[in-house]
């Protein structure tokens, strides 16, 4: 291979500069600023700030709103991750039987993924709409009065459903390629060794999908924690009220609606640490990842 040679160290840095600038301006600077603000109490009207040490953090542990959001986020993340992985795996296993190698199907199935989260949220809101929503009407015909944005549980159910629905395609695609990467002969050898399809799935297919599954697990946790912001926002329309909120949305509500920049920053820092942990877990896994060849 030919190595690119730069006469001077300045040139490569110059090429990297735009990218570095973007990262610095949109990531490091706000992150550092958030860490800093999390130790201050800001005057809501912009008249100065006071250093308060870890007050903002201790305030979080005493805030029922925050604890509620934390609890909801844990349940939300578990449910969204579980259902979007589970349903996607089920669909992928079924699809794999039919379309070994047929690419057009895969592309079609991928389309849902191209929908931006707020749009998915909007479609979801339309489906769950109080007067015209299809799902609301179906539920009404069963005698259930579904009240999005009013009833806590109804809103939570809608958030979870829309988030799961939005995430299934990407999981599906990964699972499907994972399944199709398992050599046909390995499955066939298993068919000769084991009569039961279910037990073959758990003995052979599932372990061989484990690397894909773990990768998706991290992706889905991250998605549930952060990327569902758009969906949550569309559903609660910036009116927290009695509605369930995720931690990320709480940051926004407290910081921009409540004007509590210090508390909001402390929440951001907590989330940053969470992302850091997830990233470390993922990298450690990728390092030790078993390559089946």
């Amino acid at each position, binding site marked *: 291979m030919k190595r690119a040679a730069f006469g001077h160290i300045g040139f490569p840095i110059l090429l990297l500069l735009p990218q570095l600038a973007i990262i610095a301006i949109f990531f490091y600077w706000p992150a550092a600023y958030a860490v800093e603000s999390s130790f201050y109490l800001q005057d809501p009207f912009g008249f100065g700030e006071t250093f308060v040490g870890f007050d903002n953090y201790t305030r979080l542990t005493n805030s029922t709103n925050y604890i509620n959001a934390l609890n909801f986020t844990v349940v939300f993340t578990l449910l969204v991750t579980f259902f979007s992985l589970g349903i996607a795996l089920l669909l992928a296993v079924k699809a794999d039987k039919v379309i070994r190698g047929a690419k057009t199907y895969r592309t079609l199935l991928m389309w849902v993924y191209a929908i931006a989260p707020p749009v998915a949220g909007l479609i979801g809101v339309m489906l769950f709409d109080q007067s015209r929503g299809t799902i609301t009407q179906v539920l009404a015909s069963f005698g259930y009065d579904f009240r999005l944005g009013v009833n806590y549980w109804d809103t939570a159910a809608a958030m979870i459903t829309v988030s799961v629905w939005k995430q299934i395609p990407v999981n599906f695609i990964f699972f499907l390629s994972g399944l199709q990467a398992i*050599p046909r002969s390995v499955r066939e050898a298993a068919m000769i*060794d084991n009569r039961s399809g279910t037990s073959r799935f758990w003995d052979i297919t599932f372990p061989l999908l484990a690397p894909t599954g773990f990768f998706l697990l991290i992706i889905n946790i991250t998605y549930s924690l952060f990327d569902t912001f758009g969906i949550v926002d569309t559903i609660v329309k910036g009116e927290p009220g009695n509605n369930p909120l995720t931690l990320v949305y709480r940051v926004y509500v407290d910081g921009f609606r409540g004007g509590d920049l210090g508390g909001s920053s402390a929440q951001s820092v907590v989330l940053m640490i969470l992302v850091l942990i997830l990233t470390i877990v993922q990298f450690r896994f990728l390092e030790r990842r078993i390559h089946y060849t």
Partner: protein
Amino acid sequence: MAQVTLNKVRKVYPNGAEALEPSTFTIPDGELCVLVGPSGCGKSTMLRMVAGLEDVTEGEISIGDRVVNDIDPADRNIAMVFQNYALYPHMTVARNMGYGLKNRGMDKGQIAEKVREAAQMLNLTEFLDRKPSQLSGGQRQRVAMGRAIVREPDLFLFDEPLSNLDAKLRNQMRIEIRALQRRLGTTAMYVTHDQVEAMTMADRIIVLSNGHIEQIGTPAEIYSNPASTFVAAFMGAPPMNLLNAEAGQGRVTLPGGEIVPQAGVNGHAGAVTVGIRPEDVMPSPQGDLTFNVDIIEELGAQRLLHGQMAGQAFSVAVPKDQEAATGEMRLALKPGAVHLFDADEGRRLG
């Protein structure tokens, strides 16, 4: 132990391609039967139908005296060895070998015992705790064999099991598989596209071409009495020479006018194909046929002379101690050297 019978078995894939024309044959108990033919001729299709991995479109397959068409692969009491070994990548060698037994409800102690026995037979004892990815190609091949043996099946099915090995290992494994199959006395179907493998391993050979059976016979029968020009050209190395000729007035004449000795025409007249194996001719000044040598190929034990006879490609194999030079020479035929085939269909005449 069991015999295998195919009765008018046909395979049409869902896309409409007929991969196997109705085929009928029986493999007697304990025999090793090789299915041989060029790539795409339907060998794997046939084997996979016997294994139950592919539906049978028409006809009946029996293993022992049981029709297995509707029996699950796991219940056919067969074992299959695949070209790419198809080992379970996440299981150790021991678990790979024991997986089938475990699913039959055999107890752990007994499985361990059987796995140990098979491993010993195949020199795999020290690898039992390794994963397939930590083994060489030859060792994986042995594990695949071991997985087949421990099941004590009625029938072994091999689908090109040696194709992924290098030539030296292939020769060695060929002999080992053959010896093992003899020792166990288990009926086996063995698919290969390699005619040397077919000739050396088989009790019985089935030559397939384009989805139909060209010939069934022992290696000796196939070699000495090929049923068609396809078999004649496919089986034997170097391949049989095939020359266009004319039959008439009780003899066979090559385009240049030379008469092919030994050729009885059985009242056949018109265009025919004459088949002569390179090893069935010898240079001789009194020979009846003229041969023009263009190239000499040294193979060590013998020499191959490539050139023209009656304007058509022709090859002659001579022992290494026989002098050879390019240019014209005369050839005599060994007894029984001439095979005569119909020119259109390629079927053997007489």
